[in-house]
């Protein structure tokens, strides 16, 4: 390997390292999800209010997953009490907030939603005993993935509403609609992320793949137990270690998902992928080799001396490649 290539690689790793620290590490550094939810940056909010031009108000679209027993009933009570709240929210009923799959939380974004709410019963009040705690773990981890991918995690919101809290429900919807308004629409210049819409969607797609992956789901499922319970040796996993592990998994899984997506769109060489994704060629090669070994990728052709890989799914769909994929090179 030439000295030049080595330098490039180091630099790329360095960049990734910084990003990890800023994006993912930051997201995971905060212990309590609820705290971050309510800790609204006042100064930032003020700046944003100033930035919105009068008369050009952006009305966000929000999809809410509400549990049947508490929050859906609370929303019904808001209705019977005639408490007006913004029309932005559309509700999907589930039996328990614990039913909301991490992938399902991201689905609405792919359909153009600007924000997603998951509402469950108050802690210790869950109709199914612990479903809301699971929802909490999932939202926490999905937000970490979003942060890593440069998407505002404030677009995904979790809170508790009891069957008697119609007024609280209306208030939460209003608050969240405001919060999403400040974040702007998904994609485009006005969005907080500043990503073009297709790029935003791709990143959500990457996130969705990660949340559908085995490693991620296992960690999410075990998070509560690992952090709160002792193992047979009466040892408890330190929170920091779990977070490091989670950060590592998120970084790796995001990269792999991104490679999968790229090669689904058309054949690509490792070098091109590394360039597009802004990570080291070695990293990409590692994942490409893995994906090839397990039959997700195949060798398409060799141009010059670089082999190009393509996803098996591509051969099946022959989908056309779209321009402007610049994942992680933010």
């Amino acid at each position, binding site marked *: 390997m030439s000295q030049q290539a080595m330098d490039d690689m180091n630099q790329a790793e360095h960049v990734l390292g910084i990003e990890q620290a800023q994006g993912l590490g930051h997201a995971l550094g905060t212990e309590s999800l609820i705290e971050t939810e309510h800790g609204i940056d006042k100064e930032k909010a003020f700046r944003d209010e100033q930035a919105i031009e009068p008369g050009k108000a952006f009305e966000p679209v929000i999809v809410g997953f509400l549990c049947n027993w508490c929050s859906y009933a609370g929303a019904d009570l808001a209705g019977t009490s*005639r408490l007006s709240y913004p*029309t932005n929210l*559309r509700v999907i009923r589930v039996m*328990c907030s614990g*039913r909301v799959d991490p992938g399902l939380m991201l689905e609405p974004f792919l359909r153009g939603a600007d924000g997603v709410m998951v509402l469950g019963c108050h*802690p210790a009040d869950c109709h199914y005993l612990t479903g809301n705690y699971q929802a909490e773990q999932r939202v926490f981890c999905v937000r970490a993935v979003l942060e890593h991918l440069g998407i505002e995690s404030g677009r995904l919101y979790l809170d508790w509403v009891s069957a*008697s809290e119609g007024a609280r429900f209306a208030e939460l919807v209003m608050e969240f609609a405001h919060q999403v308004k400040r974040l702007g629409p998904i994609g485009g210049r006005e969005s907080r992320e500043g990503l073009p819409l297709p790029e935003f969607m791709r990143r959500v797609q990457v996130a969705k793949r990660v949340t*559908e992956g*085995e490693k991620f789901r*296992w960690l999410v499922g075990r998070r509560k137990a690992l952090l709160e319970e002792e193992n047979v040796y009466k040892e408890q996993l330190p929170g920091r270690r779990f977070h490091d592990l989670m950060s590592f998994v998120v970084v790796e899984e995001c990269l792999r998902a991104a490679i999968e997506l790229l090669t689904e769109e058309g054949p690509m060489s490792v070098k091109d992928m590394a360039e597009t994704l802004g990570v080291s060629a070695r990293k990409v090669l590692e994942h490409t080799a893995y994906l090839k070994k397990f039959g997700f990728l195949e060798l398409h052709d060799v141009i010059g001396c670089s082999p190009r890989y393509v996803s098996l799914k591509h051969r099946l769909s022959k989908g056309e490649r779209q321009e402007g994929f610049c994942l992680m090179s933010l």
Partner: protein
Amino acid sequence: MPSMLQDTGFDARIGVYVCHCGLNIAGVVDVEAVRESARFLEGVVVVRDNRYTCSEVGQKGIADDIKEFMLNRVVIASCSPRLHEKTFRTLLEKSGLNPHLLEMANIREHCSWVHYDNHEAATEKAKGLVHSSVARARLLQPLSRTKGRVVPEVMVVGGGVAGISASLYLGGMGIKTYLVEREPSIGGHMAMLDKTFPTLDCSLCILSPKMVEVAECENIKVLSYSEIEKVEGQVGDFRVQVRRKPRYVNEEKCVGCGDCVAKCPVKVKDDFNRNMGTRKAIYIPFPQAIPPAYVIDDQNCRYLTQGKCKICQAVCERGAIEYDQTSYVETIEVGAIIVATGFQPYDPRGLPQYGYGRFPNVITSLDFERLICADGPTYGKLKRPGDSQVPKRVAFIQCVGSRSVASGCRGYGLDAETGSSVGATDPKAYCSRVCCMITAKQAFMVKEKYPDAEVYVYYIDMRTAGKGFEEFYQRGRHEGIVFLRGKPGEIEERDDGCLRIISEDLDSGCILDLCFDMVVLAQGLTPPDGLVEFAQKMNLSRSEDGFLMEGHPKLRPAETAIDGIYLAGCVQFPKDIPDSVAQAGAAAAAAAVTCSKESIEIDPLGPVIDEALCIGCKLCEMLCPYGAIKVELTDKGPKAKSIEVACKGCGVCGASCSTRAITMKHYTDSQLTAQAKAILEVV
């Protein structure tokens, strides 16, 4: 045959019905536009709008359409499914369709009622909700309900007048009933009252025959001195763990002769008499107690605390004293549960300006009941606690702990540290309903016993809505009770023990500066101690005021959101004795309906496990709160298996499965995804 079409091999034929609900929906949402937007959606065969879809005409229209258009899916855009899902499912069933092929779009509670100020956006939202429902309906699968067994027995929790009445109704119907009471005797707060309003019946004289009836009814088993530890199962088949606290006295052997009490050397404050009198460490709460057996107070018994004494055992001729009793848990299977755990009087120490607890002559209305009761610590003489003198001037202050909007109702929530309810002594926003009449009664009783006494009542409003209430209140006025409109800000104690109240009389506009020998605070009614934990055990919701929430405020006042659990008495909201008894009757009838069924249909919402994808990682097994999914070794390796009877259908396993091998019936991944996609079709 329409039922043939349910087979998923056939294409969906969907009927969409958009309800006007009079003007409830149509007044805000453009119903025709919503209807038309659904017309050309995939699979939709017929779209209609109805004035009232739930009416007989509306329902018949749907039934006819199912036949005529061979519909195999029905989408109804109307009110909340929590209200009418059952109605329409029954309709589908009658029309030969599987009840699970119904989908409802909630365009009333979630749309027209909350977006009345923006008709256009509400219409667009309603369209989105209908599209989402149609998308889900396309993927709905017919499900067969499983049948659960019904244990034809009922548990009544709480032995106050509501619990007693419910038990008697049930026992009278021949239904085996367990009456669980936390205290050593049933009777509840009613047993502590002297008289009842407005008839001035002696409270215990009318209650104790009912208590005796309970004891004699062969269908009722009283589990006194017991508490609910855990509740499992569902309607028709609850398993309740009841902790039986030790009485140290054998209930069967004790005849209540009282020899033990006479000899017991330990005297303690009598909590039944509101700590104003004394009782022994072995005691019976009141003479008419049921079960009529003594109980040893293990906190104060000399033998149980210090290891020597045993006098009661020595004097008991029947050998009923058993020091070696320990608490144990009994598991009881019942088909329905009635919750009648009553209330707790508001503790006025939360309002220090009235000096309760500091000034001996400031008492509460319940203290007053004990003082004036012939069985009370003063044998019916109204002696004020400070110096045992009979007061000549008595003031009553209304709404102590109730209707305090300024302090407000802290409402719902748990203390993060202790897990107990927040602000038990915070004044409440609601009206406790009974205090006006309690005060009217007590003021009348003072006048009756001591015609020369001066009686003043400080009130905000006198609320005397009830049969004979207003007449009783007017009678009190004629007897010379002075009613002053205005709530005193503070009570001061003078050196001679008299209590000075300065307040404004709103009717005359005068400032009144009066002194009294005794002040009675009309304490409000608050949720009973430990209701938060109890509600969690039973999975019940509480209203903002902290009481248990009824199934529907108008139409299901004695039911809860949980099938098979019913409410009676003050645990739902403060109410007087006749209302408690009436609600007990309603709860008993509802419980009897459950018990009269041979089996109960349970919604089949369990998981569907794709064995090809399952890797037996046990994540689902670890996360399932009910132990309803287990990994078993099969010939293809370890695979998850659902245990249908234990499953409640929450879906935690489905959403957690590491290989996404699990989906839930009726809330499948594809249904929810389709909904999430379609809900934003119209923006």
